[in-house]
């Protein structure tokens, strides 16, 4: 097994992609029997759009989870980002870049706060990020009565609706971000240290890794990804939406996607490639059920079952590998 392979790629189990292919195959069959078309252009496009939104968040989530942390504030960060972006742009293409800059700055700051709370205040990430989420919720509830601001037309046409064949720009953005994250984990000191901290903070510390610095950075990156997702959604909705993040359940869904991708919730093991697979899996399930006009609530039940089942399968494998 070559060094390059052993250092990174090997960490991402193909399992999720097998599941993905199977799901699509079976889904395609059922939908076709049902008289619909799963891979019709509009369906495929909207599938990839769903994946793009969730994916951006999930990639960030992967980083913190690999580091042994967690971010449950992403949903609110997403909502806030759509607003910051749309309101700063106010429909003016000129303000495009400053707006995106500001959005990322804001979300990075939130990530930084999360990081500090987790590392220096030593608050358990679960509580810390839920708490920060509440802070943001209050601000949003109090400040907004619904959509606000207006996204720059250029962004709407570009990131929001532009596509190459069936592949939307946004999905390409996701792939780019995912690739970057993969690269960071595999090829930078930060990445190696992050995985170490996730695996065993004490060991990392004794090896001279600045654990808290690494974790804070991870949280910042995670929030940045959520910010990007916000920018994308703003481009999609043409305005800022104070509820879009929570409506999309981006906090829990992103975590689900990450574990579906084979990343250990405890940290120290996993990767971005798997996460992208997990995201595509969730999006496909969505698309299939949508085509079948399955009752939303039934869909939710199925989702729950699938998530548990998938992770159970990983656990089985892990156990076999261990023994």
């Amino acid at each position, binding site marked *: 097994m070559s060094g390059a392979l052993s250092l990174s790629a090997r960490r991402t189990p193909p399992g999720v992609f097998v599941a993905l292919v199977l799901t699509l195959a079976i889904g395609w069959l059922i939908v076709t029997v049902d008289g619909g078309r799963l891979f019709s252009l509009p369906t495929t496009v909207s599938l990839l759009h769903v994946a793009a939104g969730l994916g951006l968040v999930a990639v960030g989530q992967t980083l913190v989870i690999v580091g042994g942390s967690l971010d449950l504030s992403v949903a609110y960060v997403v909502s806030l980002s759509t607003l910051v972006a749309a309101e700063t742009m106010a429909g003016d293409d000129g303000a495009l870049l400053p707006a995106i800059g500001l959005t990322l700055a804001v979300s990075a700051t939130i990530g930084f706060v999360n990081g500090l709370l987790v590392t220096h205040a*030593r608050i*358990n990430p679960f509580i*810390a990020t839920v708490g920060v989420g509440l802070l943001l919720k*209050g601000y949003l*509830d109090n400040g907004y009565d619904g959509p606000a601001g207006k996204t720059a037309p250029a962004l709407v046409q570009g990131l929001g609706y532009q596509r190459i064949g069936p592949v939307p720009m946004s999905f390409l953005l996701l792939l780019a971000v995912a690739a970057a994250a993969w690269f960071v984990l595999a090829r930078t000191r930060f990445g190696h240290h992050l995985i170490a901290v996730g695996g065993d903070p004490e060991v990392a510390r004794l090896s001279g890794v600045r654990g808290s610095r690494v974790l804070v950075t991870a949280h910042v990156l995670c929030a940045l990804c959520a910010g990007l997702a916000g920018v994308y959604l703003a481009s999609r909705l043409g305005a800022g939406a104070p509820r879009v993040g929570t409506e999309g359940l981006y906090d829990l869904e992103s975590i689900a996607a990450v574990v579906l991708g084979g990343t250990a919730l405890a940290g120290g093991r996993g990767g971005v490639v798997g996460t992208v697979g997990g995201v595509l899996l969730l999006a496909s399930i969505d698309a299939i059920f949508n085509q079948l006009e399955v009752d939303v609530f039934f869909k939710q039940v199925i989702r*729950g079952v699938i998530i*548990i089942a998938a992770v*159970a399968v990983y656990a089985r494998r892990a156990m076999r590998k261990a023994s």
Partner: protein
Amino acid sequence: MRIARPLRLLKFRSGGLAPIIVILAVLLVLLTARQPDFLSPPSLMSFLGRSAPIILLAAGQYFVIVSGELDLSVGSLVTAQVVIAARLIDGDPSAGWPVVVLLLAFGIAVGLVNGLVTSRLRVPSFITTLGMFLILVGAVYLWSDGAPKGGLSEEFRRLGRSGFEDVPALGRIPYALVILLAAASLALVLTRSDFGRTLVAVGGNPRTAELSGVRVWRAKTMAFVLSGVAATLAAILIGGYSGVSFQAGVGLEFGAITAAVLGGVALGGGRGSVVGAMLGALTLETLFTLMNFYGVSGALKPTVQGAIILFAVAAASFRFPSR
């Protein structure tokens, strides 16, 4: 015994009750400052009565958390139980007790599933119970297609709504409070029992527990069952207190977990006390009331709540470096 004292000190500093008691005291002072008669028996009684459900949930959550797991499904379980009760009873007074039994059975069943999937299939409880959350919510909506059916009988509701009238000195003692005290003392006995202690060991170091003959899977499953039972009791009280609604259990899981952590129960297991968890819940309830009395705007409440929780947990989770 030469170094006994400093170690006591450390014991009280880490995961002890002191911080939560202090925080609770501060909140109570603020509260009475604004509302002098808050501590008067009648109002105190009704306050304790209506706080009973979340305190019960926190107690249930303690067992799960101390065993090293997490139960995100309690909120949805409460909702499910209330809706189920309403549909089964449908205003029929005689149905009360049988239904209570049935609910308990259901709560135990859900706990069993959570526990077995987590301990036998090795699915991280975060995922298991997240999945269960989706399944329960989806299923209950599906079952009652979108709006709760039937209704709770006055007899059923009495448990959560009324109490022993004109008790000397105290006036009215809500049944909820009595149930709470009973459950609380039971929980306390349980934590002191062999099961309670081994459960802590399981959370602290599963390997050691296993090699000492503890059936880890069994202990953890028991913990989830207890959480399920607690959720059921809470559901009966909530349903009684405020009637049937899909909102009945929304967000309670986060409330319970926050409460436990606030009370010094360490997420990850092996440390904390059930009393702490329950005090944590009481503190949260006091906080809500405090905000009502100080007229914090509804929309801003989450912000204030988040800020205080972060502050409190940071204070409570303060620990000496152990190594």
